[in-house]
Each structure stands twice: as C-alpha cells, then as structure tokens.
C-alpha cells in the first residue's frame, strides 16, 4: 500500500511537468487557435537553456530558470510574429505541418548547438535531500515541483481573472471578432499569449533538469503526452489540462510500477477512448 502512495506521489510530481506543457498548449490553442505540435520542443529548449546556465555558466538555480524563460520567450516571439501569424486563417492541416517542421528545425538546432550532450540530472544544493513519506525517503525536489506546479496554476488563474491583460486574453479566446471590434489589439495580444505559452513550457523543461535526463529528441515524446493530457482535459480548458495532467501522471506512474509493459499502450488507449466517448474531454466546450 505504501508503494502505491509513494508511486502516486511520484506520479504527482511528474504530472506537474505535463501540466506546464499542457497549459502552454492550451493557452496557445485557446487564445490564438494554434495547435502547436512543437510545444514539446519549447520544453526541451527550456531545459537546455536552464542546464547550460546552471551547469556550464555556474549561475544559481533561480537565475538559470530566468535564463530559460528569456531564451524560450525570444524563440516563442519569433515563432509567432514571423511564422504562425501568417497561417491563422488557414485550415488546421497547415498549422500542424508548419509546427511539425519547427520540431525538425528545433531538434536539429539543439543538436548543432549542444551536440549530443545529454542533460544529466544535477540537483541544486538547495533541494538536496529527502523527506520521509509513508516511511520512505521522498526527494524534497519532487515536493518542490508539486508546489511549483500548483503555484504556477494559481499565478495563471490570477493573471487570467484578476488582471486587465488576462481579461483581454479571455475575451480574445472566446470571441475574437468582438474583441477586435472593441479595440483590443489582437495581433499584439496573440504574440503575447504565445510567448506566455512558450514560457510555461520552458519553465517545465527548466524545472525538469535536476531530476530528468534530457536529449534533443525529448520534444517529440513530451508533446505526445501533452496531447493526451489536453484531450482528456478538453482542448482549450486550463482546468482540464491540470486535471488531465494529474490523471495521466498518476496513472502513468502506477503503470510503471504494476504493469510496466503496456504503459504506452494504456496511455493511447485512454486517449482514444476519451476521443470516442467524449471528444471534448472533461472540461472542454461543445464541439
């Protein structure tokens, strides 16, 4: 039983990474209408930026996070401003293909810049050590991740519901033409929203470096899981992304413990079943 709890907690912490990427995916989709297949690559670049600044440049942990945010923010800005903006009105196939091309470009650039260097987990001294939970040592960092994930969720909630900018975002998300008509500058807003989405993914990647190995191919794996999460939670719903991430994270971790064989299959099966029975997911709108 303690195994179960322990593994479930593990699942909770890995869920937070999924939540961050899925949140970014959801913001990009909900506001800009872009389904960004390359969002996993943004996660990956966040990881690489953070790792480089922490490990190689010797900056402290928090500064390396900032570094990651800046790097990903710039990339997100360039992506949206010069490329994605041009295909907003085109059918979704073009979005998927364009963002898929970005995966190729980002993965390759990463390989070019960092070579085949792997990101090897290095725990910042601040978080070293464990806390006993159900009688077993549970890494402090993993607990930190859980809190960080929830904190980010709260920050997003505050931004969306309590700030002027957030209100504009929500207006643009639900009624683009009206928002335009009442004077909200849609293009700038979209760019800002997409950058915000990129930052979320990057934070996820950056926070993952102390406990996860990362290579230039991780973008592809992450995006698939993020898709599964958003499908379950409902495309365009942040609440759904959070719940979906929790479900997938915990189920995934429990599968690794009890039925490691078919973990991937179960994941996709859940995704398919949700799409068949309730395509709008748990919290998605009607479609």
């Amino acid at each position, binding site marked *: 039983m303690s195994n179960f709890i322990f593994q479930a907690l593990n699942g909770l912490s890995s869920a937070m990474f999924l939540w961050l990427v899925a949140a970014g995916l959801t913001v990009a989709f909900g506001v800009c209408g872009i389904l960004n297949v390359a969002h996993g690559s943004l996660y990956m670049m966040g990881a690489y930026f953070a790792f480089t600044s922490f490990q190689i440049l010797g900056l402290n942990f928090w500064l390396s996070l900032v570094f990651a945010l800046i790097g990903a923010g710039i990339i997100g800005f360039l992506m949206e401003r010069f490329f994605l903006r041009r295909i907003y009105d085109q059918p979704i196939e*073009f979005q998927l*293909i364009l963002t898929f091309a970005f995966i190729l470009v980002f993965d390759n650039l990463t390989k070019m810049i960092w070579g085949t260097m792997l990101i090897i987990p290095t725990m910042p001294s601040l978080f070293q050590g464990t806390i006993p939970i159900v009688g077993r040592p549970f890494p402090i960092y993993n607990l930190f991740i859980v809190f960080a994930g929830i904190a980010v969720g709260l920050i997003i909630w505050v931004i969306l519901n309590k700030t002027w900018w957030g209100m504009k975002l929500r207006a643009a998300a639900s009624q683009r033409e009206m928002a335009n008509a009442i004077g909200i500058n849609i293009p700038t807003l979209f760019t800002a929203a997409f950058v915000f989405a990129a930052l979320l993914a990057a934070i996820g990647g950056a926070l993952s470096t102390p406990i996860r190995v990362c290579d230039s191919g991780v973008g592809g794996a992450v995006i698939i899981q993020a898709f599964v999460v958003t499908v379950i939670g409902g495309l365009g719903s942040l609440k759904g992304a959070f719940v979906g991430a929790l479900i997938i994270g915990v189920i995934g971790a429990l599968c690794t413990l009890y039925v490691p064989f078919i973990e991937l299959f179960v994941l996709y*099966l859940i995704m398919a079943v949700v*799409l068949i029975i309730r395509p709008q997911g748990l919290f998605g709108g009607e479609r």
Partner: protein
Amino acid sequence: MTGLKDTLALSIKRHRSQLCWLGAFIIFLFILPLFSGDYILYMVMRMAILCLLSYSVNLLLGNTGLLSFGQAGFYACGAYACGKVLLAGTSLLPGIIIGVAVAAIVAIILAFFCVRHTAIYFAMITLAFGMMIFSLAEKWVTFTGGDDGLIGIPRASLNFFYIFNIKMNTIPAYYYFVIVATLIAIYFIYRILHSPLGLIFQGIRDSETRVSFVGISVRKSRLICFTIAGIYAGLGGALFAPLEQTITPSTSHWITSADPIIATLLGGMYSFSGPIVGSVVYFLLKDIIVRLTMNWMLILGTIIIILVLAFRGGVMGAFHAYLSPRLK
C-alpha cells in the same frame, strides 16, 4: 449506355497531352533497369511505396478534408501481416493479398470510431490509434518480434497458380512487380476519384452540410473513404515487407505518418498527380540532403516552412498556376 471502349476513347481524346507525358513516364520506368544499378531501383521502389501512402493521405485530406496522423498504422498492419505470411513459406501473392486484407479489416473497424469526428479530433484519434498499433508492435514480442521486429522475410517468388513462377530475389525482378502493382493501384485511384464516389468525396470537402442535404450520408461516405485509404496504406506496407525484408515498429510511429503528409503537401493537395510528384521530390530531397549534411532535419524543416507559407498548392499548384493561362 456507352461501353468501356467508348469511355476509353473519350478519355484519351480529352487528355491527350497528359497521356503523352504519362506514357513517356511509364516507358521510362520500364527501361530504367537497363541502365541503372540496384540502388536506384531500390530508391524508385521506395518512392512508389511512399506514393501509395501519399495517395492514402491525399484521399482523406485532399478529398474529404480529413488529416490523418495514423496512416502508418495501416502501413504497419500490411507490412507485418505480409511479413508473417511470407515467413510461413507462401509465395508472394498470398503475402501481399493478406497484407492488404488485414489492413482493410483494421481500417473498417477503426473507421467506425474515427469518422464521427472532424478536423483536430480526427487527427488526434488517428494519431492515438496509430501509436496504439506502434505500442503493440513494440511490446507483443512473441508475435511481432518487439523492437527487433520481423527479420529475414523472404522475397518469395511470384507463383501464379503454377502457371508461371518468377523468382523475386533479384532487385530488378521485384522492381517490376512493385512498379506494376503501384501503377495498377494508381489507375484504380484515378477511376475512383473521377467517379460518382469521388465527386461525393470532393463535395464533402467543399461543404459537408450541403452533402447531407442532397441526400447522401456523409458518415457512410467517410467510412468508405477511410477504408480505401487504409487499403492503399496497407498495400504500401505489404510491398515494403519483401523489399526491406525487415519490419520494425517504427513503421507505425506517427513520424512515419508525417512523411506522406509532407509529400502530399509538397506535391499539391488538390491535384491528382500531387502525391506522385510530391513523393518523388520529397524522397529525392531527403536523399540528397542526407548525403550533403548531417543537418537534414534543419533543411527539410526549413523547406517545409517555406512551402507552407508560400505555396498552398504545393509544387503542382504552383505549376498549374504558372501554366494555366497557357493551357486550356
């Protein structure tokens, strides 16, 4: 009712210049082994197989407006099924036919779940099914050989009811088989797309609501389209198994599904010869780029980005736009 002969005569008159090009192309394909080595023939065969996959994608995308990220699943079904049958010791045709049949059955079953949805959800559910097949291929080690896959698939000889028996172990011999099979398949797709069924597919792409209001069940038509697309992907896989003689789970990965999508985009989604042109161009591009540089993903990605932003109709679209003031 005009007979088949009259139909043929009418078609020939109508498309004379296109048929000339086609004829020259086919003749070129048939005499290619006379002056090319095995590697070039291998490449052309891979192009032909990609072409079948591209028609599979094109049928769904360019005609009923559905983007599938899971055609590789049917491709893998065809490949694994054919491989298992050939490993059991049969001749070539049973392997191919059973490969196609398995892909068709899987397509029919999955069709019921997939065609209820459109746009994003269709892309996602086909992705999910494709990856489920991938997981099965990876983990069901006793049946599929797991990560190592099926190895040592014999390139069985073409044994036609004991009337003739042609050995396929040389590349040129199998090349002719693949080319003939592909040309026949393309001919059938041509007939389908220009038939009432094809018109219905295009109508669905144009305006789905209107189609149901002319009395045609959109769902049934999509089921048929999905099944045909699955058959073509399965045929590609079945032809691939004896060629490569090894089948691994990566045949079912969504990244393999991306190849024909890009090829179709390159060649032009809305033209009939788009998949052919796109497959040839994409394959050549990939081959050349891989030889020149390690950074083929970067270059390929950049080319795709340029294409998506600049040319919506792909190569054929740009071609037509350039030529159309002069033609017709």
